[in-house]
């Protein structure tokens, strides 16, 4: 028996709720006391064939809920409803909201008095559907995150079936409410208005937060992005290189070679200015590197091989920078080979070298196959003599060059042997 003479039980429930609302100031217990059988009594009355207003609507039969409540109240010997008492709580809760609405209404009234406002308002009204979707999206984000459906992922748009269903469940009611098709009941409207307010407040922080999360993920979680933009440094076979070792045409180690790229920029393997620790093969502990001061006193980090020392030998200054204690000289790290394969000596020197730009400033080098210094200065000096690298190269070159014959041999191997690099590594490589 859900319907009595065309009046559904929902009507009875609504009527009873309205009556209870008019009694709300009495306190919950007393309202329950007064009305606990209200629905039953109303339904009985409706079902009673002999009832005076049989078949009429609830309001026709019983009067408005206000009248009904007043009658109930008077018969029960209770004071008539006091408007102030009844709405005290609602006033307290709704006062800020009503104040805001009043201010906004007044503002809107003043704006409407301005000539330029009408087209602006028309434009904003046209954008309303956009807000309906955005509102649904915000609710989607809040619910998805609140229920853990999104997990730790950044979900701008639905990615799978579950989030897709949730998205539809959020956006469609939002749009339908905006079109005044759904959620038009009294309480539904109230709920929807609150959701609207929450969405309006949350939309910008939400976007900002998601943006921040995405950025964070790209920076720290996405290895592809990281390796795609390695920054400074030299990479070989997917691995960052800590040091470079230069050998001359005879395969002899070259000390203090300065490297520049094709645009004249110093080639740096490390960008930590000596603060980091690096491991390399055949070392038992990490090393840290020190820069080389050039003639102008600037620290240079493109002079190879980089010199340094095992990190444990460093001390820290007041600023927290790594320093070698005074009296400790930086060491050259072990060379990968005591000697690299020598280049084919013929042909190049006589015919091709004069054509090369590098060879022009070293005329003597081309004539002397033995002088290992010349290739050293060649690449560094590059295009012309006047530049700083060009002028330095000859300075550095003689050091390495003079040693290339005799002195370098004890020098470089001296370090390598200390680190356990066998001296016979050279012959092995050079043999072919």
């Amino acid at each position, binding site marked *: 028996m859900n319907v009595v003479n065309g009046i559904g039980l929902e009507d009875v429930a609504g009527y009873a709720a309205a009556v209870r609302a008019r009694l709300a100031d009495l306190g919950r217990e007393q309202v329950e006391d007064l009305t606990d*059988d209200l*629905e*039953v009594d109303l339904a*009985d*009355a409706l079902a009673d064939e002999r009832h*005076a207003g049989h078949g009429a609507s609830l309001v026709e039969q019983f009067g408005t809920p206000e009248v009904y409540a007043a009658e*109930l109240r008077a*018969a*029960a*010997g209770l004071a008539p409803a006091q408007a102030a008492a009844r709405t005290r709580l609602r006033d307290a809760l709704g006062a800020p909201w009503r104040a805001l609405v009043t201010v906004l209404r007044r503002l809107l009234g003043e704006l409407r008095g301005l000539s330029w406002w009408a087209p602006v308002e028309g434009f904003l009204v046209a954008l309303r559907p956009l807000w309906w979707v955005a509102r649904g999206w915000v609710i989607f984000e809040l619910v998805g995150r609140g229920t853990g459906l999104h997990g730790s992922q950044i979900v701008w748009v639905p990615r799978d079936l579950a989030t897709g269903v949730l998205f539809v469940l959020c956006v469609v009611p939002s749009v339908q409410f905006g079109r005044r098709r759904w959620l038009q009941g009294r309480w539904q409207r109230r709920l929807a208005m609150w959701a609207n307010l929450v969405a309006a407040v949350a939309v910008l922080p939400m976007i900002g937060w998601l943006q921040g999360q995405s950025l964070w993920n790209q920076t720290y979680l996405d290895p592809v992005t990281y390796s795609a933009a390695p920054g400074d440094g030299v990479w070989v076979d997917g691995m960052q290189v800590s040091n470079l070792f230069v050998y001359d045409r005879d395969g002899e180690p070259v000390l203090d070679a300065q490297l520049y790229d094709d645009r004249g920029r110093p080639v740096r393997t490390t960008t930590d200015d000596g603060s980091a620790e690096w491991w390399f093969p055949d070392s038992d502990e990490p090393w840290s590197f020190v820069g080389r001061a050039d003639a102008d006193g600037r620290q240079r980090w493109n002079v190879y091989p980089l010199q340094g020392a095992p990190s444990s030998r460093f001390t820290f200054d007041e600023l927290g920078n790594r320093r070698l204690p005074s009296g400790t000289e930086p060491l050259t790290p072990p060379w990968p080979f005591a000697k690299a394969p020598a280049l084919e000596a013929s042909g190049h020197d006589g015919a091709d070298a004069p054509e090369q730009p590098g060879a022009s400033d070293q005329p003597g080098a081309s004539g002397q196959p033995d002088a290992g210094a010349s290739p050293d200065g060649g690449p560094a000096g590059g295009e012309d003599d006047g530049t700083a690298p060009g002028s330095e190269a000859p300075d550095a070159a003689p050091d390495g060059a003079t040693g290339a014959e005799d002195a370098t041999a004890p020098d470089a191997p001296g370090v390598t042997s200390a680190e356990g690099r066998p001296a016979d590594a050279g012959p092995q490589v050079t043999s072919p």
Partner: protein
Amino acid sequence: MDTTQLLKGVLDLAVLAVVADEDGYGYDVVRRLRSAGLEEVGDASVYGTLRRLYSSGALTSYVVPSDEGPHRKYYGINAQGRAMLAAQHKDWQEFAGTMARLLGEEGQR
């Protein structure tokens, strides 16, 4: 003359009399009052009166479970209610007699 005004003064008595006759639930009391000829009685007035009489201790109340529909709250009269009924009954008879005499004398003129 609007009998609802008259009814207000004697509704307590009428409700007590109906319940004293037999225990009843809300609408049952309304129906019996109407059957007895008080057609103008308002539903809410009866429910409010039942509640007030119960609160003042003149009625007892108990819930009867129902297999078909919702549970119903029944009201019954107790000793205090019977005393109240007797007193009011007496008052009413005196008042009604006074009115009858008054109206009778008026009518005889």
